[in-house]
């Protein structure tokens, strides 16, 4: 009996010691996480909050996303940059740069983020954080509302209109091999491809989302599919070290999607 009691005693002590050790390991791990008292700090966020500033890199050669007018930098991405700044309570300063220099500028700390039609680049993901997409500029199906096509596989036996030699043309050729039959009509401009659908020369057009939105703005009688055939998500790039800023920007983007601000902004420019 005494032996058993001693064993139980030792067992309890051992369990307690292990629990303490485990808790200590967890505590050390938690306290050294980024943003915790003994972890790395987001100096960008700290500076931004102290100075009330935010530096955003944009390339003004991509209207209507960013363009340089005599008065100011404007466009969807410029508006987005300013809106993010407003919602974070800081003043956005836009820095103009060529797209070749974005990652260098981000690395050197010249800018806090880049909003310029970037896609997620896995080769940069070691140090760059990419936000959720704020826009999808990929290839999309445009068709008549009474015969709305959502996916390429619905076009078996149909005729598709594309811009000659475009990404839509390339994608249509891929599907030509997958489907039993797909007839491809090629046009010089994306607007001509969409007009062909209006004129009943084709069942659907496969064009880039930007061209589609522009055409549909002026032209009733056609609708876009709900999702792109080939997604090209436009994302915001930030340094991973700016983890707090990344979190806040994601939150702001989510809010803008939920309250309709982002869609309103996109519709204003496209």
């Amino acid at each position: 009996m005494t032996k058993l009691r001693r064993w139980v005693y030792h067992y309890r002590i051992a369990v307690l010691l292990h629990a303490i050790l485990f808790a200590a390991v967890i505590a050390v791990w938690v306290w050294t996480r980024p943003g915790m008292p003994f972890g790395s700090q987001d100096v960008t966020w700290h500076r931004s909050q102290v100075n009330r500033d935010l530096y955003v890199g944009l390339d003004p050669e991509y209207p209507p996303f960013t363009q340089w007018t005599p008065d100011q930098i404007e466009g969807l991405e410029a508006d987005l940059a300013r809106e993010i700044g407003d919602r974070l309570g800081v003043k956005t300063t836009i820095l103009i740069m060529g797209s070749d220099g974005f990652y260098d500028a981000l690395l050197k700390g010249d800018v806090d983020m880049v909003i310029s039609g970037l896609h997620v680049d896995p080769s940069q993901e070691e140090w760059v954080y990419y936000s959720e997409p704020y826009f999808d500029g990929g290839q999309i199906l445009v068709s008549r509302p009474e015969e709305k096509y959502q996916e390429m596989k619905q076009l078996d036996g149909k005729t598709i209109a594309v811009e000659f030699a475009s990404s839509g043309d390339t994608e249509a050729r891929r599907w030509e091999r997958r489907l039993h039959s797909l007839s491809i009509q090629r046009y010089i401009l994306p607007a001509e491809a969409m007009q062909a659908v209006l004129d009943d020369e084709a069942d659907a057009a496969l064009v880039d989302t930007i061209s589609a939105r522009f055409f549909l703005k002026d032209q009733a009688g056609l609708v876009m599919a709900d999702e792109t055939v080939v997604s090209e998500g436009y994302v915001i790039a930030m340094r991973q070290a700016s983890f707090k800023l990344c979190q806040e920007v994601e939150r702001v983007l989510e809010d803008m999607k939920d309250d309709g601000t982002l869609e309103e902004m996109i519709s204003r420019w496209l």
Partner: protein
Amino acid sequence: MSLQPLLSRLQPWARYSGFWLRLFLLLAVLYGLAPAPLQIELGPRQTVESLHPKVCVHTRLDLEVEEWKIQRTLSLVREMGASTIVEFFPWAYVEHQPGQYDWTNFDRTIRHVHNQGLSVIARMGLVPDWARPPVYEKVTTLQYLTSDHFDEFAAFVGAFVARYRADVTAVIIWNEPNINREWGDREVDPAAYTDLLRVSYQAAHAANPDIVVLGGALAPTLADDEASTSLNDLQYLELMYEAGAADYFDALAVHTYGMTYPPNAEPQPDKVNFRRVELLRDIMIRYGDEDKPVYITESGWNDHPYWVNAVRPSQRLTYTLEAFEMVEQWPWVQELCLWIFRQPLDSHNPRDAYYALVSSDFYLKPIYEALQAYARGWENPYEMP
């Protein structure tokens, strides 16, 4: 002597031997299930079939990880009818410690280049960590090279040229030194670049007297205002000549992009278009360098849907073919290399994806097939709608 005590001591271990045996067998099975590394067969050496030897492309094999992609890319280049590639060979990738070269990756690329029967114009650049200031002193980019490390760069060029003398016909010394980003985010300096060219030229020719050293590779830009730390290519070339560069390059590397203009658009100093190369050539003639050839090591049109400097895909295809036809009439142009054959990921640079001839998943774009037809004398498969 009895074995009993020993056996009784081993008993607890023996009790677990089944477990260890099973674990070992499981690991052995898992190891066996792991995919074997891809076997790359080189096969017999190929030859390029082309009626137009000036057709050349700029590849980006330096960004490639998997060897089969290098092989596939280069076989597509050969099948297209291009006999030469421009490829980037970053200094930083090979000389991790001063004076110690690890040529493994370069060897791999050159092995496939050789196997496909292609020749290489090698672009040299990108500075290793040890040749840049420590990060606590100054944050610099990989293009930051100061004059106290010019000799080490030249030594690398010499070693490279000596090693690959059978396949590398020309080397480009630096890339676009007239824009501040490519000059390490500093104010550009044609005299310093000329100095870099001089030491590199001497090292390259000492290693291989037949090598063609290409100078320039200037970015076509109109930057010339005082606020800018870049310099327009025409001014920069003149300043290079003023600094004595003429003796230190065998041919001029030129980047000439069509932007939104057709290839026959008149050249003008205040416009960036394809025939801007003629303005650079005029400067060469003015400085008595008319006998030196020009290698167009970057060129092309972009068909991005909304970039202000892009054209529609149909225009891109037509303009590109017309440009090759024009260059056939220019004996002073040695090569016309298109930027860019393919990038490993189209998302790497969204704009460059629209310069590419082949998508990152190796899908041939119509412009590839049209160029192939041109280079090999076939009928163009694409009739304009």
